[in-house]
């Protein structure tokens, strides 16, 4: 059967034997080009390297980074472009209409092999002791594009190794390939300008001004972007081989931005936190404080078992050592919860419902907060305060003054925003004795200096749900062990009004459960109906109850979250985070 006549191809630009594959139509601001015979349409100004990425074609590179200016010095991204006699670097060549590009012919392969050889001749054979192994571009490209053996028999150029270039960053001068990504980051993103390029030629080396240090809150990003092991992260140095890490996508809990992160876990412990790209929230970056948010999991004393005690006894709040909780022998979670409910009921009976109050944290997940509201309502506790946790000012890049990840989440579920005044009033009322019973979820008012020992010990019912063995927990009548950061799935709404799903990276110790589970059970004892067995189910219930969350779900939030719609415009919502815009080529 004859083929249907194809439409006439456009007249070829030059008289070639076979007409080139037909180029797709383009809009006024677009160009169409061919890369390895595959057509692609891109916005004007897009580079050949970026256009190739659109097609899923890998053009190897070191010095190019979408978040930094183009340097063009590594020479790894060579491609062949018809009508241009020399090979061109894809990272710096704008795609033009009708361009014909080849990324994998003999000439390009030979150039890549040459560049690999040049990069390796002075590079130390440090792989066995280098953190970068397993995520090193030199290794990857050497395997993919290299000669396979060395012809270099000379003495390599030597430089200082293991240089503490900053409090959290270690520099190896021999591994450095002078791609200058780190310098460009410090100049263009953190704008702290600590790094420079010194000497010239084969002795060119990056470094700080003598006596000065790479000491800014974004120094960790230079380690992420260093394509080799020249810059390594001191807290992670020699801790784990990256191919053993189980990587979990999650969200940082350090502040109200909620940078998207990857938890690198090994043997049930987080070994490092690195940023995941999210153009709306944090771009490619995160701050050093955020990288360290898992560290309390490695040593801060935990609540691991439910605890309850009979008489009210004073514990020393704010003590340096881990406060001990007297445990009634063999209390089960059920018994602890029963005791908690009973204490609250008795206190309300003696002094009235208004004598009960709750302190709920904006550090909790949306699921925790939703269940808190429901349970507290069910228990007749109407007075709920959310304490603020602020530090400094919003910095020009990512870090927010508000150090709670979910202030907006508290607002959405009806608990209100963090409120210093309301918190202070509650503290005063506790001190004055008009509040006799407190439910504290995820907060440490004693340790934070809000409430003092006598006030705490005067309470007739103190129920604490928390991960940490705090002074407040030590004074509690009932202490219920909660999951800590990165130990449970949950959603937080960041300051932009973006709901993001943090995934659990590591298991919690002992009998710790997410706070929402404890709250559900506590609520049950006051008649709360409903059985939500997963965080996802709780979220779905919250979404049904609160219009801004409507149509969202854990599944829908995926890896990069979703903006939610408030009644009034969200501050800063929708605009990408500063320093995170993909650079114009």
């Amino acid at each position, binding site marked *: 059967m004859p083929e249907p006549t194809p439409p006439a191809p456009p007249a070829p630009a030059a008289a070639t034997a076979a007409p080139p594959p037909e180029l797709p139509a383009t809009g006024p601001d677009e160009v169409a080009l061919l890369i390895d015979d595959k057509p692609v349409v891109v916005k004007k100004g897009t580079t050949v390297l970026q256009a190739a990425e659109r097609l899923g074609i890998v053009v190897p590179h070191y010095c190019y980074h979408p978040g930094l200016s183009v340097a063009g010095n590594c020479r790894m991204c060579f491609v062949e472009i018809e009508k241009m006699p020399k090979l061109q670097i894809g990272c710096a060549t704008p795609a033009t209409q009708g361009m014909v590009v080849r990324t994998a012919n003999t000439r390009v392969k030979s150039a890549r092999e040459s560049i690999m050889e040049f990069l390796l001749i002075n590079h130390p054979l440090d792989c066995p002791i280098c953190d970068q192994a397993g995520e090193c571009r030199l290794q990857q490209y050497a395997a993919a594009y290299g000669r396979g053996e060395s012809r270099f028999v000379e003495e390599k150029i030597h430089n200082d190794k293991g240089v503490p270039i900053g409090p959290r960053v270690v520099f190896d001068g021999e591994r450095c390939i002078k791609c200058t990504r780190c310098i460009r980051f410090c100049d263009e993103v953190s704008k702290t300008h600590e790094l420079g390029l*010194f000497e010239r030629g084969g002795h060119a080396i990056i470094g*700080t*001004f003598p006596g000065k240090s790479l000491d800014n809150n974004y120094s960790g990003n230079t380690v992420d972007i260093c394509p080799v092991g020249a810059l390594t992260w001191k807290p992670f140095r020699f801790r784990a081989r990256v191919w053993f890490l189980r990587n979990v996508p999650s969200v940082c809990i350090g502040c109200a931005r909620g940078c998207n992160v990857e938890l690198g876990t090994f043997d049930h412990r987080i070994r490092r936190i690195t940023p995941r790209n999210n153009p709306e929230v944090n771009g490619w970056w995160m701050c050093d404080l955020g990288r360290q948010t898992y560290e309390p999991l490695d040593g801060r004393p935990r609540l691991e078992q439910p605890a309850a005690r009979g008489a009210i006894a004073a514990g020393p709040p704010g003590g340096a050592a881990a406060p001990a909780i007297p445990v009634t022998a063999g209390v089960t979670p059920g018994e602890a919860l029963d005791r908690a409910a009973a204490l609250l009921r008795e206190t309300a009976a003696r002094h009235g419902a208004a004598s009960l109050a709750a302190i709920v944290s904006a550090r909790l997940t949306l699921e925790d907060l939703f269940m808190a509201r429901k349970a507290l309502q069910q228990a007749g506790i109407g007075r709920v305060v959310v304490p603020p946790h602020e530090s400094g000012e919003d910095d020009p890049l990512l870090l927010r003054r508000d150090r709670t990840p979910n202030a907006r989440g508290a607002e959405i579920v009806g608990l209100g925003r963090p409120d210093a005044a309301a918190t202070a009033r509650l503290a005063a009322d506790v001190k004055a004795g008009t509040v006799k019973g407190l439910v504290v979820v995820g907060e440490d008012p004693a340790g934070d200096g809000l409430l003092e020992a006598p006030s705490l010990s005067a309470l007739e019912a103190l129920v604490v749900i928390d991960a940490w063995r705090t002074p407040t927990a030590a004074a509690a009548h009932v202490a219920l062990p909660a999951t800590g950061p990165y130990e449970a799935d949950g959603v937080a709404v960041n300051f932009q009004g973006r709901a993001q799903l943090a995934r659990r990276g590591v298991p919690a110790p002992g009998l710790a459960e997410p706070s929402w589970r404890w709250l559900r059970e506590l609520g049950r004892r006051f008649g709360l109906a409903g059985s939500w067995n997963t965080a996802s189910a709780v979220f779905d219930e919250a979404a049904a109850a609160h219009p801004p969350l409507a149509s969202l779900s854990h599944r829908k939030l995926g890896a990069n979250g979703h903006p939610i719609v408030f009644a009034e415009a969200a501050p800063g919502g929708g605009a990408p985070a500063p320093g995170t815009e993909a650079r114009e080529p």
Partner: protein
Amino acid sequence: MSDAAATLPVSVETDRKIDALLTKYPRRSSALLPALYAVQEEHGWISEEAMDYVAGKIGVSPAFVAGVVSFYTMYHRKPVGKHHIQVCRTLSCMLRGSFQVMARFKEKLGIDVGQVTPDGRFSLQYVECLGACDTAPCAQVNDADVPLLDATKVDEMLARLK
């Protein structure tokens, strides 16, 4: 004013010279190379302290200034001799015996290339083509050109220079 002057790593005169440079060019950044020369003119070399100071004057980071200083061969990062002898080592001078000339300097002064004599009078440096190949083998002593060197001229020169 004298208190402020006391803390500067340069003289008031040099500080004023640099101020004038800041508005001489269409962009302030261009003042960096001449400012470094001004510092070196006064002290004979450029200390880290001076680099930090110049960085503040121009409005760039100290790391940037250190990068510029270390890129160019004519900025000295440690003191050189009162008479800094720079012998050309590139082809035309080499063909006409510059290595032998340098050997004579080394022998007479008792120092190696890159060193300063104990009395601080002389230092030796190899430099690349000085653009005076018609007078090979040639050298510079500080700012001055020294053409057509040979062993006799080396001895003569060293005797003459105090």
